[in-house]
């Protein structure tokens, strides 16, 4: 398959499973997405949201139940995986345990009938790229987790696939290695200019890697946007919760003016920014990081600290405000449990949604 394609188009791609009681369940419901060449796309969502299903459908490891996948004008959703030729990095690496690392990396080229000396060259280049030169003749079992991970990446990129698929490739690594490999993956993506589709449940990973993030839940796409937009302007309450808007308050509507909305209830008054047209219930979502101790702005809430968790650079404090409403806030001050504090949050950072749905 050509690596000089313009775009990969998913049109209403669905995948149904029969659950044990025989009902058809949509693991993936009408995913439509256009990926441009060179883009780094993250599918982000909790486990069971359909992100891995989507990846397997694109790789050809699962047949689609509906919709089409095409590379430019060429339809590929009926091709077997070996004909699509997308490189894939598996969560458990799936390195061939009986082959040396060199043979693992050369496997894809061997299957393509690449001439021997060209295989040697390209494999050597791949090893250099993932910085594993010198380990070529070891068996996968003799490498550390991080090294195995890099072999898996080398094996997938050496075939120069039009699209590189990664299924939670860092979830088996420890925190430090995860950070290193994250930078590594980004570097490799930049260096090769490859199109990458990356599946993860870790929003930090998605934010730091992706050009665009596809947030999913229950087989449905919730939001497709650049990392900054997903982070600061989640399109619905579900995305907000997933992106760390831990304070979600159900309040009544007191008034709306100039694109702002004022809410009240539970002994609180709060000004926020509506993200959806609000009918009936209103949910105000805000991040602990956006709440600070102070009295500036229209939103000032007085409350009692009930818990304080030291986190190094700052502390996470739990504060009871209004009628028994618990708020989480991050602050560099060190209030102690029992202290009374005044909290403030900008109305721009109080996002108001109409409910859980899209």
């Amino acid at each position, binding site marked *: 398959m050509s690596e000089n394609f313009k775009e990969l188009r998913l049109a209403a791609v669905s995948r149904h499973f029969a659950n044990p009681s025989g009902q058809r369940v949509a693991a993936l419901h009408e995913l439509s997405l256009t990926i441009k060449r060179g883009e780094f796309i993250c599918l982000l969502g909790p486990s069971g949201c359909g992100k891995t299903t989507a990846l397997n459908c694109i790789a050809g*490891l699962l047949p689609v139940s509906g919709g089409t996948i095409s590379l430019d004008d060429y339809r590929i959703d009926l091709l077997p*995986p*070996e004909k699509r*030729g997308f*490189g894939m990095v598996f969560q*458990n690496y799936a390195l*061939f345990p009986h082959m040396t690392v060199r043979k693992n990396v050369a496997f894809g080229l061997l*299957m393509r009938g690449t001439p021997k000396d060209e295989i040697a060259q390209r494999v050597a280049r791949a090893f250099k790229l993932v910085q594993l030169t010198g380990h070529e003749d070891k068996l996968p079992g003799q490498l550390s987790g991080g090294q*195995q991970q890099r072999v898996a990446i080398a094996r997938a990129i050496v*075939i120069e696939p039009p699209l590189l698929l990664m299924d939670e490739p860092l979830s088996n690594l420890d925190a430090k290695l995860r950070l290193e490999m994250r930078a590594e993956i980004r570097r490799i993506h930049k260096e090769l200019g490859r199109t990458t589709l990356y599946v993860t449940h870790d929003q930090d990973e998605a934010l730091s890697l992706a050009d665009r993030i596809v947030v999913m839940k229950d087989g449905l796409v919730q939001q497709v946007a650049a990392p900054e937009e997903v982070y600061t302007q989640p399109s619905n309450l579900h995305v907000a919760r997933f992106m760390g808007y831990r304070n979600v308050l159900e309040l009544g509507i007191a008034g709306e003016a100039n694109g702002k909305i004022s809410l009240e209830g539970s002994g609180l008054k709060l000004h926020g920014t509506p993200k959806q047209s609000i009918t009936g219930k209103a949910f105000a979502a805000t991040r602990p990081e956006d709440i600070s101790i102070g009295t500036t702005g229209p939103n000032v809430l007085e409350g009692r600290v009930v818990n304080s968790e030291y986190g190094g650079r700052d502390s996470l404090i739990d504060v009871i405000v209004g009628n028994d409403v618990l708020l989480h806030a991050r602050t560099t001050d060190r209030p102690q449990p029992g202290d009374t504090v005044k909290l403030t949050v900008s109305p721009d950072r109080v996002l108001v949604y109409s409910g859980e749905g899209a």
Partner: protein
Amino acid sequence: MSAVAARWRPDLGVLLVAPAAIFVVLFFVYPFAYGFWLSFTPAEGGWLANYEKFFSDSHLWRTLIITFQLSLPVTILNVALALPIAFQLRRKTRYQRFVTTLLVVPITLGTVLIAEGMLTYFGPRGWLSQFLQLLHIYDGPIRLTHNFIGVVISLVISGFPFAFLLILSYVTGIDPTLARAAATLGAGPWAQFRHIYLPLLAPGLAITFCLAFVQAFSVFPSAVLVGAPSGPTRVISLAAYEAAFEQYDYSMASTVAMIMGFAQLVVVIIVLASRNAFYRGPVTGAKG
């Protein structure tokens, strides 16, 4: 380690091993050693007289050849048949359970019952013969029992399920993600089998071959019941039986048994040694 813990205490592990060890000594080591000694104390002649007789009397040494001619092809056939079927059934389905159950049945039957069934089904006036002649598919005489073929069929019926179950357990132990990874790298179904499954299965196939071979080599009831025990299927265990219970020459019988055991050992050693040529580590792609 503290001084108290370092002091000698009776090892309870020895007690746990003891019953099995005593059993092995009483019922395997002692009879084997006794038979070994017995084979060198012939009724007449020097201490090697029995062995000389075995390898000079064509009535005796031919049994060794016949047994190899029977057991080697049967073992290869059983393993070769079981491998593709087990491979096709590697995914856990209801179908897999059904076929597995179906195939376990012959194991429980025992060779005598299988022979009985074969005589009714494959015999000259058996169902198969009558059916083929009724439909005029084949009108000639059908001889599938009381000859070499009869014993081969019997050994496949009793040996195949065994090989199948063993190989199935090896196949299902291989992480299917490996084949999926190979597929994304351009390997079609055959290449996946050839480059991923087969090398990872090789050590298991060697073990299966050994066990199936030993089973086939010691064929006795079916060689008599559905074979031609006076000629084409006069296997080595028959020679041992005749020496022991028709000529009452226990020394000669022991000699035949020793030769039989040695022949099996040679094959097993060759096959197991060839196993070293293959990778024998874990068969999953996860870090380990």
